[in-house]
């Protein structure tokens, strides 16, 4: 019974945050661009989310006749399900998690690597040249950044001596891992942005070049699932940064642990939006070049140094 309640709670929290981010992102972008953002529907424009949702549900759910129908329908579902599955291993507070897994970090990496399929297949099934270009960019970009996304987390895993997210957080009781693992944090942050293909790394969907990239042909709630999936990805990466590098729910006792967790996550979500507001999109080959030539060696070096120091001080 408790188990089902926790699952429902996690689903509710994640979907609420993802939907709320539609509003929050637009307001924050407005804030950083000297505008107001949506402020008409309801108090402070809060019910804009509801209006958007109603609109997106009632749009025509169109499957192009030239598309590969089963794959086209499957693609957005893959994205949502992989991200929601990953939230199963995210501990929100001590005891408040669906699954206390011993391979939580690996589970996250596996799911994020499966998430590539949604974009690749969505772009391919659309049977549209822009979508295909977007899909190819996405597959190359996400494959690249997965490699050192995993490697950048290995330093944390070494320090905490576990793949379990709960134990990783408990190991930060005497100091957040951002201090010993600063390079790992920076690499994970960059890889996380690339993995959720948010701006400035939204190369798969670059509006200026590829119309909307892999989801050009999508409409209605199928597009909505890509849309919400992106926000859930942002929430997921922010939650993982909080868990891995910023001590998760640990904090002074005047607030309950879950509040600490959400506060820290919210800071990173806002940081993601700030990145979107301020940075231009790099060129495709620049992104790949930075990935393979700078970040991968850095991640490997980070692992090497962390391992050597751990061995020395043991």
């Amino acid at each position: 019974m408790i188990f089902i309640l926790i699952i429902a709670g996690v689903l509710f929290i994640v979907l609420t945050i993802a939907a709320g981010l539609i509003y929050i992102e637009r307001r924050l972008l407005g804030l950083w661009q000297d505008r107001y953002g949506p402020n008409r529907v309801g108090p402070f424009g809060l019910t804009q989310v509801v209006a958007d949702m109603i609109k997106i549900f009632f749009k025509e759910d169109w499957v192009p006749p030239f598309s590969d129908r089963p794959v086209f329908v499957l693609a957005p579902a893959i994205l949502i399900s992989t991200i929601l599955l990953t939230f199963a291993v995210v501990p929100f507070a001590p005891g408040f998690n669906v699954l206390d897994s011993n391979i939580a970090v690996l589970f996250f990496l596996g799911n994020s690597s499966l998430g590539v399929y949604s974009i690749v297949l969505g772009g391919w099934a659309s049977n549209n040249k822009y979508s295909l270009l977007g899909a190819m960019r996405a597959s190359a970009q996400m494959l690249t950044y997965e490699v050192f996304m995993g490697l950048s987390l290995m330093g944390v895993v070494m320090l905490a001596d576990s793949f379990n997210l709960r134990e990783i957080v408990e190991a930060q009781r005497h100091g957040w891992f951002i201090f010993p693992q600063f390079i790992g944090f920076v690499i994970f942050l960059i890889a996380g942005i690339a993995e959720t293909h948010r701006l400035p790394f939204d190369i798969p969907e670059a509006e200026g070049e590829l119309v909307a990239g892999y989801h050009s042909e999508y409409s209605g709630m199928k597009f909505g699932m890509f849309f919400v999936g992106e926000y859930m990805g942002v929430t997921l990466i922010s939650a993982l940064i909080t868990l891995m590098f910023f001590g998760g729910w640990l904090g002074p006792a005047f607030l309950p642990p879950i509040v600490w967790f959400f506060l820290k996550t919210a800071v990173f979500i806002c940081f993601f939006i700030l990145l979107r507001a301020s940075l231009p999109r790099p060129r495709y080959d620049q992104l790949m070049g930075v990935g393979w030539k700078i970040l991968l060696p850095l991640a490997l070096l980070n692992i090497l140094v962390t391992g050597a120091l751990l061995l020395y001080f043991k």
Partner: protein
Amino acid sequence: MFSILRSLWYTFLHAFHKRETILYPEEKPYLPPRYRGRIILSRDPDGIERCVACYLCAAACPVDCISLQAIEGENGRRYPAFFRINFSRCIFCGYCEEACPTYAIQLTPDFEMGEYNRQNLVYEKEHLLISGEGKYHGYDFYKVAGIDAGVKEKGEGANEQPPVDVKSLMP
């Protein structure tokens, strides 16, 4: 690397700047008097309509949204029998105002003319005609024109010489 952080910081500082947006329905923006908005027909200082139905505005209109019919009243004064502007076609270019020899047709700084029914955008003369002089005060075309239309006698105008007696041989 440093420039990325700097641009992040500067963008963040924009959170404390003044908003550029004008919240429109509550807060109206200032529009200059020569703004090209809703078209009106004005009257001269005597309160008679200025339009002499010369068709120049209709000829100048690039989208052909103006239609009118001229008739002649008592004492030879021309005026439009009907004057119709289709604002669903009008592009507010202001050519009609430039073409008008009598300052009758004028554009005003009013743009709030949304309608739910397209037919309501066809304005007739009684919708267009205002009871004032618009932007050009004190101007009366018949006071400087060479004809007698009940405003002044022929040759009585400001820079006008008395009419030549064509039957006389004297210069």
